[in-house]
């Protein structure tokens, strides 16, 4: 019984996720939407690693989504058509970007930290937009495709088979979630929680707060860029909007909607958000207003999110 109590939620989440290709089409979804949801959920979970467990708000995580996406796409297009290599370079690009930007902003806090992350996100947007000979500019990076996985003994056709690609993304999500959960249970993760709860006290205890926040920022961005790689693989396409602050804002609303400070909250938030957006944009042209209204309603009436509503009251 203790096992069920401790791991019941995790078990339930994985059963539901593993079965998505079998039940999702019956409730009006399609496998591509399911894949998109788990990819966005990975990005939202990475934002939550920072926001929910370190107490730092990044409103610019689209920058790392975009770096991962362009890194992977450009690797396959210009360097070598290899899915794992694209993944590696994409994640590397995002992580290095986060290391540099993180070092510049780590001394800021709160609302100023958020503002600077927003502004930095735009640099990459303009680079992708302007450097059209390499990035394809406004039309996006096209003319490349993800490549089927060759494992030596067998070949997995993640290109032609949507369900296979879904499971490929799910494996990435599982690995990321596992690493994040382990990190949060480690002394490092506990230190992050201490910083979130009371930065000044953590500082007095001799914890190098800035370094911890920097590292947490970089780890979070690494997972965001992994989500970016999968995001690019999903459509075999990426355009500058991957970098846009609108995308960053969507990650944050997913986190809040699902319940920040809960590990699986962002997954639920991403699922609600993606399905809602998919349905809204198919039946009205004014879906942007409705989406905006949705933001306002969540913030005003439902600030603790789906999972937060059951958990303990978050401190303001």
């Amino acid at each position, binding site marked *: 019984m203790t096992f069920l109590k401790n791991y019941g939620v995790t078990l339930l989440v994985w059963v539901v996720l593993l079965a998505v290709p079998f039940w999702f089409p019956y409730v009006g979804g399609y496998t591509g939407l399911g894949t998109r949801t788990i990819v966005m959920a990975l990005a939202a979970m990475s934002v939550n690693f920072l926001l929910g467990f370190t107490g730092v708000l990044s409103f610019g995580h689209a920058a790392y989504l975009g770096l991962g996406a362009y890194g992977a796409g450009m690797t396959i297009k210009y360097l070598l058509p290899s899915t794992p290599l694209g993944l590696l370079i994409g994640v590397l690009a995002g992580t290095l970007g986060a290391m540099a930007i993180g070092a510049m902003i780590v001394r800021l806090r709160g609302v100023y930290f958020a503002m600077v992350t*927003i502004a930095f996100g735009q640099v990459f947007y303009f680079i992708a937009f302007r450097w059209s000979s390499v990035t394809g500019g406004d039309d996006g990076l096209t003319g490349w495709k993800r490549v089927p996985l060759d494992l030596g003994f067998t070949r997995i056709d993640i290109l032609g088979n949507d369900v296979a690609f879904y499971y490929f993304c799910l494996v990435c999500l599982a690995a990321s979630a596992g690493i994040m959960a382990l990190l949060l249970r480690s002394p490092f993760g506990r230190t992050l929680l201490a910083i979130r709860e009371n930065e000044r006290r953590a500082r007095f205890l001799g914890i190098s707060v800035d370094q911890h926040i920097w590292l947490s920022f970089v780890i979070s961005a690494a997972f965001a860029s992994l989500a970016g790689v999968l995001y690019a693989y999903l459509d075999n396409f990426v355009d500058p909007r991957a970098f846009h602050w609108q995308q960053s804002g969507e990650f944050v609303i997913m986190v809040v909607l699902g319940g920040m400070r809960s590990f699986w909250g962002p997954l639920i938030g991403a699922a609600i958000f993606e399905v809602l957006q998919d349905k809204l944009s198919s039946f009205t042209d004014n879906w942007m*207003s409705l989406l905006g209204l949705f*933001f306002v309603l969540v913030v005003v009436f439902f600030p603790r999110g789906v999972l937060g509503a059951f958990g303990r009251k978050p401190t303001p």
Partner: protein
Amino acid sequence: MTQVILFNLLNGLIVGAFYALMALGLSLILNLSGVINFAHGGFLALGAYLAYSLMPTIGFWGALLLAPILTAFLGLAVERLLIRRLYGRDPLYSLLLTFGLAFIFQDGLRYVWGAQSVPYQIPGWLASPLSMDYFFLTGYRVFMMIVVALAVAGLFLVLGYTRLGMRIRAGTLDLDTVSVLGVNVRVLRNLNFGLGIYLAGLAGVLAAGMLGLSPTIGDQLIMPSFVAIIVGGLGSLPGTLVGGLLIGVAAGMTTVFFPTATEAVIYVMMALVLIVKPSGLFGDEGRLR
């Protein structure tokens, strides 16, 4: 070459003046209430469209006068109904709220006035160049600079010498003490928000005459305004003014020598400032945390 440089210098100054006007409004709200107003660009666009619709009835000057005031009243209402609920909560919530409002604004403007850009008529005598050699120096550009300068001077006079301005400045430093001294902080924040939105509306009306009018007019101005605040310094309004002009001129000069980097250069400046002095050029170190 001199002509090209002068042209871009002037362009940079004018664009910088817009950034500054918008950033001053953002800064006022940020300093007193800790709210990053993402919807600022939406208010700016609304001011411009209101002026566009009012002009046939009350003329160019009437619209210039009235449209920002109407926008400010809407700002007062939005603060009163929505943003006020979120004071004292994590800044995340007000950020998301104004983010949602920005969506609603953009879509609403497109719904009412259409997605296509519409021409904004300015009086003929303002549109003509002042000199043949310097064809780019139209009367409207000079006029715009004068209006912006007057607005900024007016703002600093209000902040420096009126009771409201003194309370806003005091509240920026320590809102709790101001409240304890008997000032109604709710009203103060409301008026301060309205003042910020008035500046956005004014910037919108002026920008409409130069950039043309489309629902996304505010979008291209809001990010540079954030950068202006960061470069100029956290918590410092003169800093914000300098920051806006500085990045405007820097972007203008970059257009001459390396046009593809026009947008990117202001972010490079921001990075440099953050490395050297994280609180910005004229910033207050105490606001870092």
